[in-house]
């Protein structure tokens, strides 16, 4: 079972998948569920950076934002705050109309 799974999981990209000979045997899709108490089998089914412990240990580093990106983010932030103020005033006026 383990060998079959490993044979199928050689590459994680769609383009390059090596399949074991057993995969073409009739009934290969009807094999019993694997014993997932075996840690190596669990690891063979998941990508390395999919394991919770690995994700806790590693993080993506901070990227340096270009001036353009900073201007974009600040501009959008100002846009959101200004628009929210307008929506808020509009909502208050709708609830409590000025006579």
């Amino acid at each position, binding site marked *: 079972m383990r060998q079959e*799974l*490993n044979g*199928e*999981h*050689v590459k*994680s*990209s*769609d383009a390059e*998948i090596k*399949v074991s000979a057993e*995969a*073409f045997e009739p009934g*290969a*899709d009807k094999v019993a*569920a*694997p014993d*997932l108490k075996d*840690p*190596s*089998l*669990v*690891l*063979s*089914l*998941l*990508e*390395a*950076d*999919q*394991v*919770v*412990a*690995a*994700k806790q*240990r*590693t*993080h*993506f*580093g*901070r*990227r340096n*934002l270009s001036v353009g*990106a900073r201007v*974009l*983010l600040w501009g*959008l*932030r100002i*846009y*959101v705050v*200004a*628009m*929210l103020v*307008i*929506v808020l*005033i*509009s*909502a208050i*006026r*709708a*609830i409590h109309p000025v006579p």
Partner: protein
Amino acid sequence: MKRLKQDASEPSFGPAHPTTDVAAASPIARDLAGLLTHEDVDRARDRWRVSRARWAERRSKTLGRLSVLWLLVGPGVLVFLGENDAPSMLSYSATGARFGIGFFIPFIVLTFAMGLVVQEMTVRLGAVTHRGHAELIFDRFGRFWGFFAMGDLMLGNFLTLVTEFIGIRAGLGFFGIRPAIAVGAGLAVVFAVITTGRYWTWERITMGLAIFNALFVPAAILAHPNWTAVGHSLVTWSPLPHGNPFDILLLILADIGATVTPWMIFFQQSAVVDKGMQPRDISAGRFDTTLGALLAAAFGIAALLATAPLFHHGIDASQFEAAQFAEALEPWIGHIGAALFALGIFEAGIVAAIAIATSSAYAFGEVVHTGHSLNRPLREAWPFYSILLGSACAAAALVLIPHAPLEFIVLIVNVIAVLAMPPALAFLLLLVNDREVMGEYVNGFWENAAAIAVTVVLICAGLGFGIATVIHMG
């Protein structure tokens, strides 16, 4: 390729897109094997099913492909049917009741096409990085921008959750069920679904509930729409809506907000990660997302068609709530049709309450680095489940406050969603164009062009609303 920052004390880790053989043979595999969690084992079980289905696909292409798709659909269908929530269906209903069949039918299709462009990027981001959106924003842009993004998300999510319980209350109100009981029933469903401690079970139950969004289809058929007029409007975008420009603009924004919102980005990426999808699953993820968009567009248009008789009979629906829509429709679509409409609003509120509360919980867990998976049992990931249930409970409690201007709140929530969307899209675009994060799965020219076009449309719609509001107030 993918740049990972490690704790100095930890051993070196594998390459950007490691093969699973690399994982098993990695120098730290022994360490990891000792640290495997319940979540990892459940995810591996899901991956094994997908592997088995892929074997079957090589022997019987059609059945095997269907089997793979059945296993991999979920996040896309859920995010779009979840976004066909109570305020969204009420926006479509208000649109149908006030403007009838015309411009807004193709416009709804357009908004779902915009949603599809956005959500496809979250599939790639989740499948390639195995990280949620909130976690990536904090990692790549730092706490300052991270807290802004979280602020937008949490505010929008909470207000939207309130409106979901408005929908639940109003939908069951049609059947004479008291508000407290209706809201309590909604909370009970949210709680029952998360007690499974298994992402797969949660996803299938929620999808089972979400398919009842189709209740709007028989309600629309009972309204006997003029199908020739529907086809004509789809092709010609006419007749154009007439009336107060401010009201039209408000409904345009509400309909956009009914389809593209920040919580969808955070939810689908986290769900893709929780489901354990890998880069090889991206094409299935695209199918899932497209299927969700098509179903949601069809059901949204059905809600509009169901309420179109109100427009043709000149009934003022400007202050209607869900139950009032159903009651007003009864003379034209019958009691069964009205009941289906009310049940549809109830269902829309339930599914969205589950999805939006889960979106908040995922984001919280990712930011504070606590367990954030539906594969974890309640006792193990109690902070995650506390946020999920706590936000739902708080929103439900607010709905029971009497004399709230419900219809206006419902429309305003979608408007706020539109306003908060451009910054969320900016983060998404920066991430999905980040070669260190995405490697070969980075956005191409057309994907960027489409995403930038969506962002510009949203900004213009927001600015238009702002200008119209200022003029309207003056």
